[in-house]
């Protein structure tokens, strides 16, 4: 086994529990955008496949009217309340899904290669830069995949976490020779 982080071709770790909210709203509506930006301290990413990090939360574009908001577990309830309060008179929905999804971080020089064993998205840095997010499939699991400065983060439904973990570890065998 390698003895420095640098040498580990790929590492897989469960992400710590964090807060996750699904926000659904019409981003064409300036009032709604303003109401949300006020809470997130960052504009809502309306460009497909992008994300935006604010002070309190990172917003991941999931669809034209759907976002996944990631925040610290401690901020979860506060964030939801703040959003609901700001959006009270507008048509929007904020639903807590913190427990519905589990996250994994895949790190290391072979991270993209490992994921490409099961994910058909082009993960080359020219096509998948930091901050990009997609919903797609990893083998037989639905994933939400985000590239951060440090790693790939992927979120799967809680009941798919065991499968995903097994799949990732098994895929990594090739690099652990």
């Amino acid at each position: 086994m390698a003895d420095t982080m640098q040498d580990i071709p790929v590492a897989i770790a469960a992400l710590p529990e964090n807060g996750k909210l699904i926000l659904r709203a019409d981003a064409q509506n300036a009032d709604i955008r303003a109401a949300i930006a006020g809470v997130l301290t960052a504009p809502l990413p309306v460009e497909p496949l992008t994300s935006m990090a604010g002070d309190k939360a990172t917003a991941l574009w999931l669809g034209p009217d759907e976002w996944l908001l990631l925040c610290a577990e401690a901020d979860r309830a506060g964030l939801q309340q703040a959003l609901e309060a700001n959006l009270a008179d507008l048509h929007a929905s904020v639903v807590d899904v913190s427990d519905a999804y589990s996250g994994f971080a895949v790190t290391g020089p072979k991270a993209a290669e490992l994921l490409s064993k099961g994910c058909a998205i082009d993960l080359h840095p020219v096509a998948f830069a930091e901050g990009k997010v997609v919903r797609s499939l990893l083998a037989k699991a639905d994933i939400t995949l985000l590239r951060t400065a440090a790693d790939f983060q992927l979120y799967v439904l809680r009941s798919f976490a065991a499968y995903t973990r097994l799949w990732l570890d098994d895929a990594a065998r090739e690099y652990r020779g």
Partner: protein
Amino acid sequence: MSQSHRLPAGGRIDRSRSLSFTFDGTRYSGHPGDTLASALIANGVHLVGRSFKYHRPRGILTAGSEEPNALIQLGLGNRTEPNIRATQIELYDGLTAASQNRFPSLEFDLGAVNDTLSPLIPAGFYYKTFMWPQRGWMTYERAIRRMAGLGRAPDGPDPDRYEYRHAHCDVLVAGGGAAGLAAALAAGRAGARVIIADEQAEMGGWLLSEGDTEISAKPAVDWVEKAVTELAGMENVTLLRRTTAFGYYDHNWLGLAERVTDHLGPYAADHLPRQRLWQVRAKQVVLATGAIERPLVFGQNDRPGIMLAASLRSYISRYGARPGKALVVFTNNDSGYRTALAAHHAGIGVAAIIDSRAEASGPLPQSARAAGLRIYEGHAIIATTGRLRVDSVRLGRLAASGDRIEGAGFGIPCDLVAMSGGWNPNVSLFSQSRGKLDFRAEDGVFVPGQSFQPLRSAGACNGVLSTADCLAEGFAAGAEAAREAGFANRKPAALKVTEPDCPAAAPFWLAPPEKPLARAKCFVDFQNDVTAADLKLAVREGFQSVEHVKRYTTTGMGTDQGRTSNVNALAIVSATLGMEMPAVGTTTFRPPYTPTSFGAIAGRNIGALFDPVRRTPIHEWHAAHGAKFENVGQWVRAWYYPKPGEDMHAAVNREVKAARTGVGILDASTLGKIMVKGPDAAEFLNRVYTNSWLKLGIGKARYGLMLGEDGMVRDDGVTVRLGEDRFLMSTTTGNAATVMTSLEDYLQTEWPELKVYLTSVTEQYATITINGPKSRELLAALTDDIDTGNEAFPHMSLREGTVAGVPARVIRISFTGELSFEINVRASQGKAVWEALIEAGAPFDITPYGTEAMHVLRAEKGFIIVGQETDGSMTPDDLGMGWAVSKVKPDFVGKRSLTRSDTVREGRKQLVGLLTEDPKEVLEEGAHVVQVALQQPPMAMLGHVTSSYYSPNLERSIALAVLKGGRALIGKTLSVPMPDKVIKVTVTEPVFFDPKGERANG
């Protein structure tokens, strides 16, 4: 162990190391760089297999993946592989190979009796016989199957691993010969992301085999090495050796199969996959797949020792092997002379060059003449002799027409025949891509014409022959492809190439044999033993479409897919029909290019990764407490919890009783849950459910039926109103995803005006049902902020508060008829809350119950399960649930279908209960009910048993059934005919227990 037929020098083999291998039990040796075929040849072994039908002795025809004859059983036990081409097996130490399709031995094969019988069994003979007696075919078939089949399947499960890899590139280059390398260089230098794949161990294609070709005044292999080094150094280029582009699918999606460790045999590292399936989406494709030499069709052209001329050069130059001592070349073009010269220089005696052309005058024939080689112009081979290997050829002078021999034939002894009929561009992938082929009459070849996808062909596969042209086309194709993909570049300078000039061949399709054609054994498809006579027979019998010829004779249907034979077959068919070849047309090219292992295509998606197992947040508790599980779709649910010594029956009875007398606890977390939010949420539910939703009070729950537009019941569940604009819907476990998809469909496309958002929260919550007269007490013990009293917390209502100290949504609903609470908590807290309930329930002897007990409990109440009482053909009314269908709503999904003539007709199947005469007798689910059981079928069936259980509460068996006109049959006695007996049943209302519904209040 001496390699008797190894040339003293030359070749790309590593002579410093020896590898030992066995073939049919005999030990031989070879060198790294050898294929099994070249090593066998170096050891003087030519006979390597038996043909499919006639079991004729066969040798090595080619040096590449087009090999039809030399099919080998490679390896042993669970790792054995049938039908592997010896020409593609890289030698490793300890390799074990065996010949196939022979018994008892390769030299003496009983199956060869078929060869003797061959006059009796021409193409398609089996359609004409084996018809008597009527069931006789089952006996004949057994014998026929044993004779067929080639190699053996492995003995057991595959011990190796297979991987997938998805990839994207700007330019994919298939083939790494002169053209492919040039294309990859051009595209790579332009900065495009390039993948170049070649099926061989080394890049270079034919350049590796041509000792007499120079590029930039150096041996061609030097250029290959330089090119490969440059490509390997480019970060934007992926070089894949031992990788076959096997399939060219729609939208420039290609499949590549990489053999990662096959060439290492047992020395492969454990962590590496055996093979890897690349799934490539390419912006542009360059096909550089080369050309395949065409055999000549003549009498007994299939004997071991007869091979393709360029392949012979390959064995000499690339592998340093000497396939024989006395060579006869049979050719219709100059490249046969190139082989003769190469053999001559390697010290192989050249007995004769037989040229079907009246005159051969190019530079190569002249060199051959100058070297003193004997040339027979205007001659053809008309027969060969030799039992297990060719030992002579007979030739004759061709009449000017080319279809007759003039004068007497004569023999020339030899042990090696090289034949060259010209070159067929390797257009498989191009055709797979839907590209159209053009016919080039002068040399009788099909070349790529109009293409349908973003691709270009370059080099020999594009009908180009000289290395200089192949390189030039390759560079140009690579540069253009890169440009189309958005990478500007300069046109590379042309390279100077010296090589003998080999102009295209004039076609020569069938050498007139010495014997009548029907006996002459002029093989066209070597693997499937299809002769020119078979093709003509097919045409004579009216099988005139090339597709009919293929299927009637099986030509081109072998493991080589007719790579060496299809064009010859087509030419013979065309000539027989008196039609032009392009008018007859080729058969359809289909993937894979060469056979591709199931393992690679399956990847790691087997065993534990075959299908995800979804477990609830409380699963571990169930497992730790001895639960048996059942699969429900991808979910695994606790089925029942046997105590030591209990069988299923006892356990379920205990669980069922407990749920009605004390308190039972059920993990219902798998139920689908959807948050429905928005000002139009109630209106939306009103349209997707059959009943009314507008007036449901906040904090209230209601049961709903969902139909398809065809009026049939698709799903059901309880939905609660959380707020003015907010509902929490539940669906059945199996339909959660389908319902979500369908609801989004209606919202996004049919009713975009409705302001509603949906969010699936199935997995956000653990759902725990406590059920039974003691459930209220239990709940009360664990909550201090929910008033559990009957009035304060009525049936079909919701309360939010805490349970076991955890925020919870509690809904008072019942799927059993008992007092029952459904507690929803965050999934991460599910197990803790469950454990708290178990602990607090100890005084009431709380009993966990599984899906089986749940089914019994609901059946006692006559509650349906979607997918069990329904099968896509039941309306609400059929199920006795007309009460759940609004008569006043203007619209809901499926409404119109409920008034079609068939949905309102008499005699539809209706849900009823059944009671057996013998209360101990439990009907079989799926059994059918008849009015009167007859001695013999057929019997008119009224319907079937959908659910059937022993009910410990009723101390008897109960069943639900759907019967034609069922409700009118209540009170009647009917029969259930089983294979061994007839069971009498009485039809009842479907509700067996507490018909007044008094127990739900505890």
